[in-house]
């Protein structure tokens, strides 16, 4: 047994020395990358990487997976013919704004990363945005929908999909015109994304809204909210939030005999919702600015995705594919640094698989679409595009 104070001191000194050496080791690796120049002979840039920033693990991991794979497909297709392969880093934020700033700082410090597909969620985009902007690291989010993100004046911010300023009114329009709802109860989860979207829907629906409640992410018992819904006699419920809570809420609503329509948005479009809610999910309407996998425009992409990953493309996989391809086309022309890549993205104007990809000065795409999906027979099927 180590009993003497002297032994403890020696051990402590050894540990401290070991940690310092380990830290030195890491800095050396990163230093190596930033020293490399682009190949003089070849066209494309070398020794560059793209990064994914979003939930690889955590409660919303289901939403991160298709994005990771969508971008992966684009990179693999590029690397198949390329002289210099583009690297792919996965930065796992668990979808939470808590870790986002420090992870973003780490990514910004890694000189090899010249483009980020992400951040995936609005909360973490808000937290990490200033850091990416300061580092001049261009980001294209395939899924963050909060409209205020584009209003921060970040030159590096772009998104490859319509934001909630279009999704919200589209959802409200669907509720008012297609569902012909007379009374709507709005629930949100106090998150940047959920509260933002629910707020927009509430404003759009005006007097049709008969009640409102806010829940917390991570809660499991929603009996008070369910009581509020049933006593308000609303014929439709709109929930702004992610699939974990949505599954519990709809389960508990149906359990207490609620028969109205449950409408949710893109944060719920995930198999995790079906698994969590089981039979209660039936008939749920889901809006999403993401293109359905059966749409002919994405047919080739969907086939290639299925071949590589053995499953149909999930939510935002196609948008992530488009985002990665914007970066990759820039890299193919020889761009190997963040500044030039940012200019490339800002000036980009081509047809992607999901839409015409062109960003305005705030980073918003010019061409946006919102689609409605519904849960039928235990599957999420596409319903129509909301015009």
């Amino acid at each position, binding site marked *: 047994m180590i009993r003497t104070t002297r032994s403890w001191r020696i051990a402590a000194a050894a540990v401290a020395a070991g940690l310092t050496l380990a830290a030195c080791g890491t800095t050396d690796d990163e230093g190596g990358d930033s020293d490399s120049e682009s190949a003089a002979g070849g066209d494309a840039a070398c020794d560059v990487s793209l990064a994914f920033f979003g939930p690889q*693990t*955590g*409660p*919303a*991991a*289901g939403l991160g997976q298709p994005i990771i794979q969508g971008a992966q497909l684009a990179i693999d297709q590029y690397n198949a013919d390329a002289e210099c392969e583009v690297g792919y880093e996965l930065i796992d934020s668990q979808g939470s704004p808590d870790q986002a700033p420090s992870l973003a700082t780490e990514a910004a410090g890694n000189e090899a990363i010249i483009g980020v597909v992400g951040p995936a969620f609005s909360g973490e985009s808000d937290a990490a945005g200033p850091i990416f902007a300061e580092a001049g690291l261009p980001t294209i989010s395939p899924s963050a929908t909060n409209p205020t993100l584009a209003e921060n004046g970040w030159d590096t911010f772009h998104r490859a999909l319509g934001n909630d300023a279009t999704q919200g009114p589209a959802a409200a329009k669907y509720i008012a015109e297609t569902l012909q709802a007379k009374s709507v109860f709005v629930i949100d989860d*106090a998150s940047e994304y959920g509260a933002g979207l629910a707020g927009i829907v509430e404003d759009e629906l005006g007097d049709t809204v008969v009640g409102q*409640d*806010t*829940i*917390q992410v*991570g*809660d*499991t*018992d*929603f*009996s*008070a*909210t*369910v*009581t*509020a819904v049933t*006593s308000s006699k609303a014929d439709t419920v709109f929930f702004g939030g992610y699939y*974990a809570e949505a*599954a*519990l809420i709809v*389960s508990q609503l149906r*359990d*207490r*005999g609620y028969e109205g329509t449950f409408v949710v948005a893109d944060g719920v479009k995930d198999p*995790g919702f079906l*698994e*969590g809610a*089981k*039979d209660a999910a039936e008939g749920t309407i889901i809006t999403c600015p993401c293109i359905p996998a059966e749409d002919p425009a994405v047919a080739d992409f969907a086939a290639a995705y299925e071949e590589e990953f053995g499953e149909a493309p999930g939510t935002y996989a196609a948008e992530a594919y488009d985002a990665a391809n914007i970066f990759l086309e820039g890299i193919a022309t020889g761009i190997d640094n963040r500044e030039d890549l940012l200019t490339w993205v800002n000036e980009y104007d081509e047809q992607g698989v999901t839409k015409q990809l062109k960003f305005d000065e705030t980073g918003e795409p010019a061409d946006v679409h919102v689609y409605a999906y519904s849960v039928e027979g235990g599957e999420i099927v596409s319903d129509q595009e909301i015009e």
Partner: protein
Amino acid sequence: MDLNFSFFFSNFPELTITGLAFGAIYALIALGYTMVYGVLQLINFAHSEVFMYGTFACLWFTMAMVGDGNPGGVKTLAILLGALLAAMAMSAVVALILERVAYRPLIKRNAPRLIALISAIGASFVLAELMGLRDRVAGWVGLDDDLRDYVGRARINNSMPNIVDNKVLFQVGNADVRMVDLIVIISAVVMMVAVDQFVRRSRLGRGIRATAQDPETAALMGVNSTRVIQLTFLLGGLMAGVAAFLYMLKIEVTKFDAGFLLGVKAFTAAVLGGIGNLRGALVGGLVLGVVENWGSAILGTEWRHVVAFVLLVVILLFRPTGILGESLGKART
């Protein structure tokens, strides 16, 4: 801040009943905290994980038995009973392991209570993360493929097959009283009474009370303190197992960190009712569940947790020993 009193009053029966149902779950978990504190003056932070493991045992047993089909009648009852026993067994085992590994070495050495507390917190994280990384652990023994349904998706919500038809049994005022809520409330009260009677009347129970009152004298009187401590943890674990089964019946979803918030609330309930007092755990739990629901109705669900903890502070300000006050050691025969 708009206070929605009209909604509260018109739905008072329903809010109270659903509040009692969740409060009953708090009460059963609180029992574990309060007993260990009464006997050892130790706050067993890892008790929330004892509960969480119970929920997973219940989930896995039900998944294994149900498969795809929907069993009816007697088979459902048998599966439910099995799930209850599985949850109780798992929670009891985890509680006993916890006692043996995290606390007994410290208690034997008369370590300061602060050290035991830190050990408790550490044990809590270890147990929770083990469950959250169960797919890797299964991978070490090469079972992650076969057990994919059970160990896969380790960090997100896992849901239990729904085999209970939650029908309305009767009405109170304009509120529907549903089967699951009634089962939860009645089971909790029955279990509480059972444990209370056990501690008050049986020989082993007397040993627990004696050790709580004065460990040294109890030892002199021939009470085996190690056995008593094991028994305390065992009882707390069994009750957490019942709570886990009832929680899964009601919520049907669990996760590796599901114990955390519930544990904090249950501990709050134990303190609210009087830490160390078994009946206090029941009262505290039910009061907490109901007041949380009322608060959610009046202020909005986002204030739920704030209401719970404000209640705790207010009660302690006026009655520092909690609602029922007296502790395990001082309980009259």
